[in-house]
């Protein structure tokens, strides 16, 4: 018989899987992921070396696009020079955006999901490319 701890873990896992599957469904063909990094963000470099190629390839298999912008410094992730006019609305949706990396799942003019760390990327975005 399961003890209380096992029940809680199972409940948490079910919630997580449920939340993740919702995101995977939201990542329908035609949607795309925007990745925001900074030239002086070592965490970003690490993610790019270790995960980016496989992640992008996985997204492509599901018909999900990938775009990337790199700001000069994580000091100013909102730098106008990096955010082209067609992407600026995403930045403007997050007025408190700070630091890097950021990941956005975009469908049309809707942001379906956002993550501002590689831990959150692993939880919310990596399943989309599995």
């Amino acid at each position, binding site marked *: 018989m399961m003890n209380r701890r096992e029940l809680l873990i199972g409940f948490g896992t079910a919630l997580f899987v449920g939340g993740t599957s919702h995101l995977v469904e939201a990542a329908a063909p035609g949607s795309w992921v925007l990745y925001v990094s*900074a030239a*002086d963000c*070592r*965490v970003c*470099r690490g993610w790019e070396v270790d995960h980016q190629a496989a992640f992008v390839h996985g997204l492509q298999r599901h018909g999900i696009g990938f775009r990337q912008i790199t700001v000069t410094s*994580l000091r100013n992730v909102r730098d106008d020079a990096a955010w082209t006019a067609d992407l600026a609305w995403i930045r403007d949706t997050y007025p408190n955006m700070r630091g890097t*990396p950021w990941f956005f799942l975009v469908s049309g003019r809707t942001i379906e999901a956002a993550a501002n760390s590689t*831990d959150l990327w692993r939880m919310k975005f990596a399943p989309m490319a599995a």
Partner: protein
Amino acid sequence: MRRVSRALCCIAALSAAGSWAAGAEPDRQNIIIDNVVVELSATPEGVTACVDAVHGTKLSGPYGVAITALSGPDAWQEKLPKTVAVEEDYFALPLRIELKRRAGATADGRLQFEVGACQPEGMCVPVELAVDIATLAPATKQVPCKG
């Protein structure tokens, strides 16, 4: 790795735009924001800042440490603002920065330290720590950074 310690000169102090952990000693004070720690000590020539991080946080080397005199920039021997960066991914911590006053100058303004703090959950954020050096009692000897 280039040593930041010798590159700078100026003042010292404290204030706080975040959580405080005031040291028991009147000539030393700590400020901690987003796992970044700056401990300031008054020295006969100016101030010493020991920059460190806790809970697995690292400080980006390319981002550097930017030091700005929010008031009285002319009181320091080195021209501020100044950024010290290293090519390595992260600074070796603790990082010791000495700021010396100009001869005859009184340095009682505010200093700001800005770093790129890379948190263990996988994100790097800019962190600013401002200190008001007027509250630091003068020390009689150099204080080592705690490793």
